Structure formats: structure tokens, C-alpha cells
């Protein structure tokens, strides 16, 4: 009876040590809501106990119900029946279980039938679901759509849609991408117009829409005829009724359980969400940031599953008269994978916590405004949190999704030829991981998004604080390495800035963002080592590796490795 929560010591460690009290205090409005809702907590300890118990349920469901169905879901995929998407049997069964267990509206407020959980706890659920079946995350992990309606919709729209997300009757899809608008969403063409009665209608085509057959769709559309950029786009909600035709389900490399659809909107009645013209610049950005965290959780779940497969196989497989686990080259690979997995998890939950702080401050400010109370202190904290969350989100998406590819790649390698066969689950994990660093913004786009914060060194104060801290024993040595990484980063950053060459800055950004990431994660692991001595091993390998990589990245920058970009046409024959 595996439980994907309680059997995952590292996830439990994060759960135990993640400081969420300020977040939960804000969300629970000083724990007054238990008078109205019998499942609302009475204090922080009670809230944390609730989270534990609910994550335990999800751990049980994912370990014993969802995971055993994953291979068949992958094999079966989705199909079209009378123009409607039909999920693989296992997908449908798992969604039913999740809905019946009240788990389809984890972040939504009590008022609309949700559990009112912090994002960080919801993300733990998404991690577990992804470990069991990465493709199910694409449906389970779309609870952000209801969040978006909650945040930007009117009270009527909230009442119309959100309770049915919470009870599992509705799932959602975000319809952004079009054939000519992928990474460049400003080019979206799908037309939104008002009919003679003034009601909005949608007309046009969307492509690569995850869960495109969903009952509710959030659609980015051009509401301002004649415009060409992002400022002519608005956000709409509509039902996936007969006016929305699913033209095809894509045949993909991985995440077979997730239906990726091409949709045609034929004068579909729609409702404007929020303000006109704010579709891309505000709402989609918000939704995407949330979704990027979701995809990072998906990558983390896949990494965990791949690591488990690799260790299990290495322990069972005997060559040269012993399990290959005991062959140094193999165990070294496994340690690298494990260290990357734990480092990525630390980064992930640190980020989700900052996003939680940001979101809750935003709500608190709204609430204070309504009450006519002062909010300047909260406003200051919000600005700070927003800056950090905006930097850490793309850093996390980049690091975790590339990491999932690396871990699953190495996990297959450990299986040798057997891993290339369909008999073992690892080949599925490799295929599933491959999309994570592409959708919701490619890795390259994540670097672009992280460049500003990195070049402006917005974590400088945070790092200076960390540097001042006295560390014990071997941790002092590792703290020294982190100082060295920071010096290398400062020098490289200065070098890039001094050149005043935007092309150069754009390609060197990856090297700089990676150094900055090593610094941030290095300190996380150092702090964790003080709580749990085992983590010293993790911190050691991570930080030593981070220093070597920082040196390498600095060399590449300073030796002008990128100057050959000027000769691209000569090289690329």
C-alpha cells in the first residue's frame, strides 16, 4: 500500500519545515471562518493538521489508484466520439475519485466550495499526482483556471463557474496558443466581437489546447478590431458547447492521457473576464505564472518517479555478480540524481511559498482597501514579494523542467537496454518529461523572464543576510564556496553590463541565471543542513558542483564564447 505522501521522506521534510504561518494567518482571516464552515481550521496547528490529513488522502489515491492506471492511460490515450473528447478510462476513473474526495478546488475559497488551501499545499498534491501519472496533472493541475475567474471575474461569474470547479463537475482549459501565436502571444488573432444585443462572441481557431474538450474554457481573444499587439487582447470565459468544435486531438510523444486539441470557435457566446484590453498583459501573465508553477510540480513528480524507478532497478539488476547499485559509476549517477531531485524540491517549495505570500498580500490589500483601512505596510511587503516571486517562478520552471529531463534520461540509462523497452515505466517518464521544458513557456523564454531580476541582482540583500550567518563545522566551508560563487557572479554580471550589448546579454543570461540559481538553492540547502544532518551530503554535492559550474559559466562569458554569433551564417552551413 504505497502512499506517495508519507513514503516520500523529502516531501514530508518540506511539509514539516515550510514556514507557512504568515500565509495561513492571512488566508484564514485570523481563523474566524471555522464558525461558518465546519471544516475550517481553528488555528495554525489545526490548519497544518488538516493539510497533512488531506495530503495523506492524496498520497493514498495517487499511490494505490492513479499510479497503477498510468501505463494503461498512456497506452490508450484519448479519443474523439461525435466531436467530443473521451478520456482514457483510467483518467476518467481517477478524476472521479479526486472529485469525490473534494480535491478539485483545493485553493478556492470556502464560499465557493473550495478547501481554501495555500498554493504550496496544492502544489504538493500536484507533485504527487504527477508522480503517479504526469498526464493527469494536465487536468488536475488546471485548478488555476477557476482561480483566475475568482481573481478577475465578477461576483456573478464567480457564482456561475467556481462552485462547479470545486465539486469536480467542471474542468477547464486555457485557450491561448494559435497556429501563429505560440511563444509570441501578442500575435493572437481569434476574434471577439459583440453581436447586435451587445453579447460577446468568439470566432476563430486555437491550437495545442490542453484539455480542449473541457466544459469551461478561458480564451484569449482580440476584442479590439484592427489592433496588432497585446493591448488589443481580452480574456473571455465560455462553455465548451456545440459551437466549440474539437477539430482534432494531437498525436503526441508523451502525456498521452492529456488531450491536446485543436479548437474551432463558431460564434461561441462568451463572457468578458475582467477589463477589456488587459487580457494578455495582466490576466494571462497571472495565469501563466501560476501554470508555470504547476508544470514545475509536474516535472518534480516525474523526477521523483524516475528516480524511484532507477534506484529500484539498480538494486535488483545484477551484473558482474552484484547489484549494479554497488558499482561506483552507477551509484554516483544515482547520487547526482537524488541531489538534483532534493535541490529542485527545495527550490520549488521556496518559490511556491513566495508566490503564496505575494498572492495573500494582494488579497489582504484588497480587503483592507474595502474596509477603508491603511495598507501601506502591506503594500511595501507586496512589492518585495512580487519582485521575488516574479524572478523565482521562471527560475524554477527552467531548473525543474530541465532537471526532470536530466533525471529521467539518466534513469533510463541506468536501466540499460531494458529501459528502452516498453516493459518498464521509465520510457514513459522520459517521454512525459520532454514537454515540461517546452509548454507554458520554453526554457529559453524562462531565461528571458528571469533576466531582469538577475541582472538587477534583486536578491542581493537576501544573500548578504545569508552570508552574515555563522555556520557550523563543514557548513562553514560550503558557505565559503557560496561566497565565491557570488563573487564570480558579480564579476560576470558586471562584465556583461559593461559591454552594453543586448544580443550578448541575451545569450549570456542563461549562464548568469544559472549562477544565481546555484546561489539561491545553495543557501536553501545550507539552511536545511542545520535542521537535518543528512542534508549536509546534499548541500555538499550541490554547492561544490555549483561552484564548478559558476567557474565554467564565467569562463564562457569572459572568453567571449558568444562572439561567434556574428558568424552564425558561416558556421551554420
Amino acid at each position, binding site marked *: *500500500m504505497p502512499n506517495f505522501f508519507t513514503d516520500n521522506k523529502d516531501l514530508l521534510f518540506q511539509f514539516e519545515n515550510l514556514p507557512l504561518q504568515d500565509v495561513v494567518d492571512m488566508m484564514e482571516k485570523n481563523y474566524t471562518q471555522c464558525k461558518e464552515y*465546519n*471544516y*475550517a*481550521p481553528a488555528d495554525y496547528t489545526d490548519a497544518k*493538521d*488538516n493539510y497533512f*490529513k*488531506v495530503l495523506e*488522502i492524496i498520497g*493514498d*489515491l495517487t499511490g494505490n*489508484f492513479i499510479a497503477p492506471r498510468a501505463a494503461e492511460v498512456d497506452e490508450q490515450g484519448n479519443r474523439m466520439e461525435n466531436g467530443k473528447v473521451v478520456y482514457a478510462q483510467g483518467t476518467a476513473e481517477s478524476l472521479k*475519485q479526486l472529485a*469525490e*474526495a*473534494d*480535491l478539485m478546488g483545493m485553493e478556492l475559497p470556502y464560499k465557493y466550495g473550495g*478547501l481554501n488551501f495555500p498554493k504550496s499545499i496544492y502544489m504538493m498534491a500536484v507533485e504527487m499526482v504527477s508522480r503517479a501519472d504526469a498526464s493527469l496533472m494536465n487536468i488536475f493541475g488546471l485548478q488555476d483556471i477557476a482561480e483566475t475567474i475568482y481573481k478577475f471575474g465578477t461576483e456573478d461569474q464567480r457564482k456561475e463557474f467556481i462552485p462547479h470547479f470545486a465539486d469536480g463537475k467542471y474542468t477547464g482549459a486555457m485557450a491561448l496558443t494559435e497556429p501563429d501565436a505560440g511563444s509570441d502571444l501578442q500575435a493572437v488573432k481569434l476574434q471577439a466581437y459583440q453581436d447586435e444585443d451587445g453579447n460577446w462572441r468568439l470566432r476563430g481557431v486555437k491550437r495545442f489546447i490542453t484539455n480542449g474538450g473541457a466544459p469551461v474554457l478561458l480564451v484569449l481573444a482580440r476584442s479590439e478590431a484592427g489592433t496588432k499587439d497585446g493591448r488589443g487582447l481580452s480574456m473571455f470565459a465560455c462553455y465548451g458547447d456545440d459551437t466549440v468544435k474539437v477539430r482534432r486531438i494531437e498525436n503526441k510523444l508523451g502525456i498521452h492521457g492529456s488531450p491536446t486539441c485543436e479548437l474551432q470557435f463558431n460564434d461561441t457566446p462568451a463572457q468578458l473576464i475582467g477589463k477589456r484590453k488587459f487580457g494578455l498583459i495582466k490576466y494571462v501573465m497571472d495565469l501563466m505564472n501560476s501554470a508555470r508553477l504547476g508544470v514545475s510540480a509536474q516535472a518534480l513528480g516525474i523526477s521523483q518517479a524516475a528516480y524511484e524507478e532507477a534506484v529500484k532497478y539498480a538494486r535488483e539488476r545484477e551484473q558482474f555478480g552484484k547489484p549494479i547499485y554497488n558499482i561506483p559509476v552507477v551509484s554516483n549517477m544515482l547520487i547526482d540524481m537524488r541531489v538534483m531531485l532534493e535541490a529542485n524540491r527545495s527550490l520549488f517549495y521556496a518559490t511556491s511559498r513566495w508566490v503564496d505570500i505575494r498572492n495573500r498580500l494582494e488579497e489582504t490589500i484588497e480587503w483592507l482597501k474595502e474596509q477603508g483601512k491603511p495598507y501601506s505596510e502591506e503594500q511595501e511587503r507586496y512589492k518585495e514579494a512580487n519582485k521575488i516571486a516574479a524572478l523565482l517562478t521562471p527560475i524554477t520552471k527552467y531548473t525543474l523542467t530541465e532537471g526532470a529531463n536530466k533525471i529521467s534520461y539518466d534513469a533510463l540509462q541506468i536501466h540499460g537496454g531494458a529501459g528502452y523497452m516498453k516493459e518498464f515505466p521509465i520510457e514513459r517518464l522520459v517521454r512525459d518529461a520532454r514537454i515540461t521544458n517546452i509548454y507554458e513557456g520554453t526554457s529559453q523564454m524562462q531565461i528571458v523572464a528571469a533576466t531582469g531580476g538577475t541582472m538587477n541582482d534583486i536578491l542581493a540583500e537576501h544573500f548578504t543576510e545569508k552570508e552574515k550567518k555563522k555556520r557550523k563545522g563543514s557548513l562553514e566551508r560550503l558557505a565559503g564556496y557560496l561566497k565565491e560563487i557570488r563573487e564570480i557572479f558579480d564579476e560576470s554580471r558586471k562584465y556583461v553590463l559593461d559591454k552594453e550589448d543586448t544580443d550578448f546579454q541575451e545569450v549570456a543570461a542563461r549562464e548568469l541565471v544559472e549562477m544565481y540559481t546555484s546561489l539561491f538553492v545553495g543557501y536553501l540547502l545550507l539552511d536545511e543542513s542545520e535542521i537535518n544532518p543528512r542534508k549536509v551530503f546534499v548541500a555538499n554535492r550541490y554547492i561544490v558542483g555549483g561552484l564548478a559550474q559558476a567557474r565554467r559559466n564565467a569562463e564562457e562569458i569572459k572568453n567571449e564564447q558568444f562572439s561567434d554569433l556574428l558568424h552564425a551564417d558561416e558556421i551554420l552551413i
Partner: protein
Amino acid sequence: MGYRSIVLVKQVPDTANISGQVMRPDGTVNRAKLPAVFNPEDKVALELALQTKDQYGGTVTAVTMGPPKASDLLRECLYMGADEVLLISDRKFAGADTLATSYVLAEAINKLGKYDIIFAGRQAIDGDTAQVGPQTAEKLGVPQITYAEKIVEIKKNKITVRRRIDGGFEELRSPLPVLITVIKDAAFPRTFRAKRVMAYKNARTLMELEKMTEANSLLYIDDLLQEYKSKNLYMPTFTVDDLDVDLTRIGLRGSPTKVHKVESVVLAGSEHEQFEPTKEGLNELIEKLMQDHIFG
């Protein structure tokens, strides 16, 4: 409309996960070392009762007889969706065999008032007797349908049930009230509901509240009872005083079943004997089994 269902549930040692440290050298099981779990077929019975409620309306009451620790089991019933629970617990009930158990269960059920369907698991994984359900039906004087795999229909106070038999199934119709014992394949028990877990995790039985007063001299049981009742977090509890039972028919005293001998049987698959599927062959087989004291 709707039907009132009562589900008989039991907490059992998790015999599916017996590890080295649980076995005593003499081959008996150290129960204290085994985790206690929801008897699997009882959980299926509860699921079937909840499905019946989902389809036809009504209520579901889960009843268990056991030590105070069985309160855990009742909370799980609430987590799944039971409307009410009842713990029957008293030292005087300890050591009961199936006869004494079914006697107490029947008396408690009579106290609960009118009911339509009693669901029970076919058998518990610790005793494997499959007797408590049928004996309870006998004592209540209601019809019983054992080995149920499906509720086909309930209409006009008549229930149609499909039951598993060797090589197939049969459908039986019975008037209500009825007692039904359920096999494992009848349903897949639903997961705990998050909201119910959060709402009922602090629900307590009488013995649990008493324990709280023992640990803290500032607490009084009457106050606690009132507080928990007002918060809808009290799980009703019957002790021997709440039932009109004959003390000679309960607990060890009321249990004619005596454990004669416990033997550690190591199954070896090396030998086998074949008997012809004829009347003579069958007689030979029975004789052989009696010689080996497997039948007695």
C-alpha cells in the same frame, strides 16, 4: 423517501501485512504489533450502503463493537460519508465469540429504532468465520442474503440482490428489512472526503472523552460530553448499561467457542492427492479430511 441503512463494521489486525516481528516463536500472532485496519469487506459493505443512499436517499449508520481503539474506525466511516456512527464498547463484552457478538449487535440495533437494510462484510480477515452477519439476522428475525455482489433494485419495500454462487450468480428478492453480507468485489470503497476529514477528525467517543478527563483533572466528563455534542462531534457510545442484555450471554461467559489449540502450519506444496469428481470420490475426500482432523 429513502432507506435507513445500518452497516456492521469491525477493526481487525492487518493480517495482509504480517512481518517477522509480528509472529511469536510459537506461531501465534502478536496482535499488539499489528496495525489495526478497517476490515476490507466491511468497508465494501459501507460503500454499498453509501451507494444505496446516493441512489435512493436515506441515511447510513455505521456500528461497531470493539475496544475504545475502534473509535478510529468510526471516524473513518464518517470520513467516507456515514451520517451516524455507534460504538458498542465495554470490558464486559471482551472475549466474545460470534454468538455473543451477534447477540449484543442485535440488541443494539433494536435500540436504534426502525431500519431498512443492514449491510455487513461477508467475513472478517482475523476470524474468517462469516458467522456474525447471519447470526445477527437470525436474532433480529429478518431475512438474510449472503455473498451479495450487487444491489439490483429497491422498489416498494422489496430489494433485489445478486449473490455470488459457485460458477455463477443468482438473484434474490426479499422484503425489507433485510440483512445483506457483502463480498469484496461488490464495490470499490470510496476515498475519504477531504472536507469530512477536516470536519470530523476531532469527533470522539465516550471512552476517548473519558481518557481526556483522566489525563487532565480540570476536565469533567459531563461538560466534555455537552461540548462535543453541541459541536456535533460526539460519536454515540453504548456500554453494557445502555443495553438490556443478559450478562450470561455476553463476553467470554456468553461464548461457547473455545480455542482448543493453535498450530503453526507450514504449507508445503509438494504432495497432492487426487479424488474423482464422483460421489464415491467425494466420500473418500471427506473421510481423509476427517482423518487429518481438518474436518471434525
